[in-house]
């Protein structure tokens, strides 16, 4: 695991390429690749899209929806809860490429979404082309929410019953009990979950590659897609590795925070 990381940092300072002279004998080019990132028109866009993708689909979408589903389940119980749980988990267990096909079909011009909109007399558009970011964000929420749901179901089941019942006796309303009792108790799980889904979403490639391939004209190119394109489509291993190194650095920062949080949770 560490060897590729070390190699990655080394290669990011070279002009290694897939073919041609530089493929056999990569030259040391210093910070050129990193300087190129700053002047490249795609890299800043791609970094920004990655931030949007992670923030909206993971931190907002998966996390909040997972919590909502888990809370609803504690209040409904029975057949509905287990049925919905199965459906949500199924879209998570499916191999990523199959989920990506399903999402592609769902958002395409003749797809399910537009057919549903058509029933209400709304003329749909080709979502993958017109709103590629919205499509991949929704697809990632659909695919990943199960994880947050499972984490929060486990966390909520450990919230002591008597504490929330005591609050109920004291006349605390539903949202008050949620905000002042339940959420503080499961704080640790929230932190861990946020960190894990952030890192998972940071690495998402297949879903985006199948649905939009980063297009149209880079409108949905996140950093993993950009690194892939530079390294394998354009053959510039050095530059692709430099982008990958940035991604690793972001992962390392989040990983460090994550380890800290877990350490802090149990002294």
């Amino acid at each position, binding site marked *: *695991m560490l060897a590729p990381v070390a*190699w*990655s940092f080394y*290669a990011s300072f070279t002009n290694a390429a897939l073919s041609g002279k530089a493929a056999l004998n990569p030259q040391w080019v210093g910070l050129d690749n990193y300087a190129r990132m700053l002047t490249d028109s795609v890299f800043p866009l791609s970094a920004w899209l990655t931030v949007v993708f992670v923030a909206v689909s993971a931190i907002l979408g998966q996390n909040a929806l997972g919590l*909502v589903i888990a809370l*609803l*389940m504690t*209040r*409904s*119980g029975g057949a*509905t809860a287990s*049925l*919905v749980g199965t*459906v*949500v*988990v*199924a*879209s998570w*267990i*499916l*191999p*990523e*490429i*199959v989920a990506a096909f*399903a999402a592609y*079909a*769902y958002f395409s011009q*003749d*797809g399910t979404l537009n057919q549903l909109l058509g029933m209400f007399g709304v003329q749909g558009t080709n979502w993958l082309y017109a709103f590629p970011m919205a499509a991949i964000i929704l697809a990632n929420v*659909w695919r990943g*929410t199960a994880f947050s749901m*499972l*984490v929060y179901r*486990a966390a909520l089941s450990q919230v002591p019953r008597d504490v929330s019942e005591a609050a109920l006796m004291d006349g605390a*309303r*539903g*949202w008050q009990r*949620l905000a002042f009792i339940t959420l503080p108790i499961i704080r640790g*799980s929230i932190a*861990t979950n946020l*960190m894990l889904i952030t*890192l998972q979403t*940071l690495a*998402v*490639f*297949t879903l985006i590659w*199948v649905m939009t391939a980063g297009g149209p004209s880079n409108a949905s190119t996140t950093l*993993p897609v950009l*690194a*892939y394109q530079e390294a*394998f489509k354009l053959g510039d*291993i050095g530059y692709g*590795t430099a982008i*990958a190194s940035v991604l*690793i650095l972001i992962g*390392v920062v989040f*990983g460090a925070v*994550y*380890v800290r949080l877990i350490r802090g*949770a149990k002294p």
Partner: protein
Amino acid sequence: MLAGKRPTAEAGGRPRVRLAANAALAVIGLCFVLPLAWLLLASVDPHAGYETRWPQSPSFANFAAVLTPGLLFQPLTNSFLLSAGTAVVNLAVAVLAAYPLSRYQSRFNKPFLYAILFGTSLPVTAIMVPVYGLFVQLQLLDSMPATIFFMATTTLPMAIWMTKNFMDSVPLELEEAAWMDGASGLATLRRIVVPLMRQGLGVVFIFVFIQAWGNFFVPFILLLSTSKQPAAVSVFSFFGQHGAIAYGELAAFSILYSVPVLILYTVVARGSGSAFALSGAMKG
């Protein structure tokens, strides 16, 4: 949209809360099941497109069409070899690595565990470019065993973490008794600890297997020849390269490819409760 329905209805009394919660859950469930509807309907529709519709003349023609050695059996065999290989390597290494971590107190334990935890957080997509370079230099490209070993390293941190947590719940007394009788560390591990944590190891095995089975990116980059590619990659070329996409066959193939992991997951969830598997992974 759903948040408003959540606990605010509490004042109205229990049955109303339950009804509102059920209704909200049903709406969410419907949203989640819709993208899957196409997959299921198209697979039995010989004239399927991207439209979701009831098949005019439902049949298993699509399934029959993909049930050929080249299209289905070879890729699925490759998937199986990759996944099982990855899981076996993981299990062997994880047991050996978890044993000292679980049984002996050493000042290297904590840093090592944190390093492992850290390893789980590196995005695999970022490591692929340098790994490809490494594979080219070592001439390991298109090699199944090398791909298995790399896939194993990517899931190993999680496997060690889970294995250690399961191993912690095996009581120490039994082992101490064995040591008294002169058994070596490795012998107690093999004869006593491993059999006692069989169920936990099963969970780890299935967990890794499912991950490897669904892995598209790693074999997509590291395996070149069609005869070695797993289903995840072959289904993609199926989708991308043929001029006219055979939607129905694509859906049928996707379902056949998904069934094994769905069954495996059900086995784990039934046998031990899905929260159990997750707590093995999550608790610190």
